């Protein structure tokens, strides 16, 4: 019984009788403090195990300063052809994978919605979508690189699967939140099932679908810049290679371009979302 409940009911905390009662009373009063103490203790323990110490951190900052000095000025010129080709490849992977993901998610979103479909249909669809979401894109990327070889095809497949995993789930949730009254009215007019979906369901979810699609594109664009690390195409490969050759000025150029691309994307997707509100 917490303090407010006690005051409302105008009852006193019962005086403890017997050993167990005393223990229970102790935890009721100090339970939160004990938990906080244990949490702090674990934090210190974990830090010590990871070998993190003030000395290590200060050394790291000195190293970081050296590294930062070697990043500038950025070198766009030496490997410009590779950089340009791979940046465009990342963008293409993100765009195509988003479109494939959205088109696959549309029917899956409707088939997985429990307010429209019987559970024999929703179950397998939901399972498939969960599976697509279960792994980080890098892990899916490794699998696809093994399956279809190095290059952008692996990246495209990876991000398509990742897109289905996320927007499929968001679409299902959007469809499950619609007003069934509007759907019922369309049904009552004698409309076919397809018409019920087209006029009763889709108008209620289309704006949200576009929003989700844009979010997924944002996410795909970020992921398409890292997939190259596992050989699945895009700028990540060149970036990783530059790191390993200690070409830090090229690394800097690529990082600046990625930042520029993401800022541009934020701006565009914000505009698109506003139009479809």
């Amino acid at each position, binding site marked *: 019984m917490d303090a407010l409940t006690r005051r409302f009911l105008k009852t006193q905390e019962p005086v403890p009788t017997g050993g167990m009662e005393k223990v229970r009373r102790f935890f009721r009063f100090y339970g939160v403090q004990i938990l906080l103490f244990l949490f702090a203790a674990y934090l210190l323990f974990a830090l010590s195990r990871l070998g993190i110490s003030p000395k290590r951190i200060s050394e790291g900052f000195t190293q970081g300063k050296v590294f930062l000095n070697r990043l500038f000025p950025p070198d766009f010129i030496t490997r410009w052809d590779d950089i340009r080709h791979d940046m465009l490849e990342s963008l293409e992977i993100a765009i195509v994978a988003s479109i494939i993901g959205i088109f696959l998610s549309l029917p899956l979103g409707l088939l997985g919605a429990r307010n429209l479909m019987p559970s024999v249909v929703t179950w397998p669809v939901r399972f498939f979508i969960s599976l697509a979401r279960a792994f980080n894109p890098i892990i899916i990327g490794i699998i696809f690189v093994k399956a279809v070889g190095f290059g952008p095809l692996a990246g495209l497949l990876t991000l398509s699967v990742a897109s289905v995993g996320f927007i499929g789930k968001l679409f299902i949730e959007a469809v499950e939140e619609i007003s069934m009254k509007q759907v*019922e009215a*369309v049904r009552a*007019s*004698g409309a076919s099932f*397809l*018409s019920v979906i087209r*006029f009763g369901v889709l108008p209620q979810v289309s704006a949200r679908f576009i929003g989700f699609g844009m979010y997924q594109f944002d996410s795909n664009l970020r992921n398409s810049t890292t997939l190259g690390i596992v050989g699945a195409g895009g700028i990540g490969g060149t970036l990783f290679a530059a790191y390993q050759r200690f070409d830090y000025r090229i690394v800097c150029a690529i990082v600046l371009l990625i930042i520029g691309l993401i800022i541009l994307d934020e701006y565009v997707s914000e505009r698109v979302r506003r139009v479809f509100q």
Partner: protein
Amino acid sequence: MLRDVSLDVKPDEILIIIGPSGAGKSTLMRCINHLITPSSGHIYFKGLDIPSLHGDQMRACRRRIGMVFQEFNLVERLTVLENLLIGRLGYMKPLEAFFQRYASEDIDAAEALLTRLGLREFALKRADNLSGGQRQRVGIGRALMQNPELLLADEPTSSLDPKTSVEVMETMAELARERHIPVLVNMHDVNLARRFADRIVGMREGRIVFDGKKEELTNDTLAKIYGGDSWMH
């Protein structure tokens, strides 16, 4: 929950069902256009036994029965015109409907009906911009676009203020009489029922406890329908 309900609606008649919440009025309506299937019993409509219909036959039957809803149930993000044309979907081929290839006559009919309902200027506005009374007019328009042979109205005025309620009921009664469509209405409001009904049916706990002309509806029968009479004074 409906028990032993037996009711036949005569052509050109406005029949109003009154009764307390949970009496089964809405259930009865939804059985009639097969939005729900009764566990047993028959509902005949122009020689068709509605509960036994499936698939295309059921949809072909539904389009002959217009329905007006308590909360209007307009598709909020479609325009008023598109909402009216929902009434035509049952008559269209699936792909025609999908790409909104409505017949010109249907669009003209929708325009004429909107003018009649005083909503011509709202035709291209989204339905969520309308007030309650206007929305219910759109709801009536949508049902009439089906060219129905029966109109069902499930508490059409319960979400409206008293003045708008009367106006909406007047519009509905007028348009239905012009087209010789029998109307079956559910409502709580006894005075409104007296004003518009040709015949009144009282329901309580899934049974019909009164069926007669509005003049025959006495305080005693009302007490039987709603239970007790303290609320009348």
